[in-house]
């Protein structure tokens, strides 16, 4: 509350939030711009878009959701989530040998 956190202390946080907001807007513009670059393969476009999205997600989770300075308990919950999420995505990609005959990867 205000007794624990002075307004001056919080103004520092507010400035950081505004910087993150600007970074997210710039990230959105770059995402759209990068999607129009004719890379040699569509996979590169996908990789670039997901990389930018991951950076934006880090900014939202790290600063707006305060994950960069959270308690161990939250990190513990998120570590389990990350493990199962990576497993879910990893197994999906790993299982690509199961796709029907003549599947084209694009």
């Amino acid at each position: 509350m205000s007794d624990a956190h002075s307004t001056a202390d919080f103004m520092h946080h507010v400035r950081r939030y505004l910087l993150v907001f600007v970074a997210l807007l710039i990230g959105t513009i770059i995402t759209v711009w990068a999607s129009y670059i004719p890379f040699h393969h569509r996979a590169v476009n996908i990789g670039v878009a997901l990389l930018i999205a991951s950076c934006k997600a880090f900014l939202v989770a790290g600063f707006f959701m305060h994950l960069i300075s959270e308690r161990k308990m939250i990190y513990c919950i998120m570590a389990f989530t990350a493990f199962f999420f990576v497993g879910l995505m990893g197994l999906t990609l790993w299982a690509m040998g199961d796709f029907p005959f003549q599947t084209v990867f694009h």
Partner: protein
Amino acid sequence: MDIPYTVQPRQDTGLYNAKVGIWLFLASEVMLFGALFSSYILLRVGAAPGYWPHGWLNIPVGTANTVVLITSSITTVMAWASCKMNQFGKFKFYHACTILLALTFVGIKSYEYHDKFTHYSIKLADGKMADGHLVKKSSDFSLEQKTGAIVIHGHEVDLNNKQGEELQKELNKVYDLHSPEGKAAEHEHKELEIPAAQIASMETYGPWHNTYTAIYFTLTGLHALHVIGGAIVIGFLWGPGSKLWKTDPERFTNRIEISGLFWHFVDLVWIFLFPVLYLL
């Protein structure tokens, strides 16, 4: 009975209970959307060559919605920071903005859905296909009785007796609107009046149309439900729920933090949905 640890942190977790609760909930949400994203990957890489759509969604509209949601994230965090700084008036202002932005997002999404529900794919009796947006249907239009006619603003595609590159180019007119053929087809759009007697079957670009629209509506529909749910909670805390500020401001501030965490998660999901569905 008083609910324990609504303000004071528990000794073992170092957090008030609601914060542990919301993070556990968000963990389950990550897995929910994760499962749908992995379904998207499977559907996309498993699609028949040339049949995965590109350019079906309006990029400027999607970009605008992204900006709306990012802006709502900053107003949410500013609402919480205002509570922390004991500035209730500013909290009211920022969260009013959040609610308006949430409604704007849902409004823009509804416009996009309407665009899909008025976009027709029509299989003609001669084997050709007509594709375009509904202009009008005659009052006596009936597919069963083969009466009346439908007018669409679009183009025809002829997939008959085509193979290889020729078939791909024809498919591009419908499925890849970023391709030269797709752009040319869009450029040549005109009003087509099609009598019901010439129609073998027709459907809109709803979730039933193909796997792309199915996963598009599932992902964005579930996300939109989260936006609506979050807006209702934030609306409650902005309106009747804000009475708690007078009696227990710290507990109220914690409620704003919890609802904010949910809102940022909704923003975070959209950050991935936007490039995946609109751009790639």
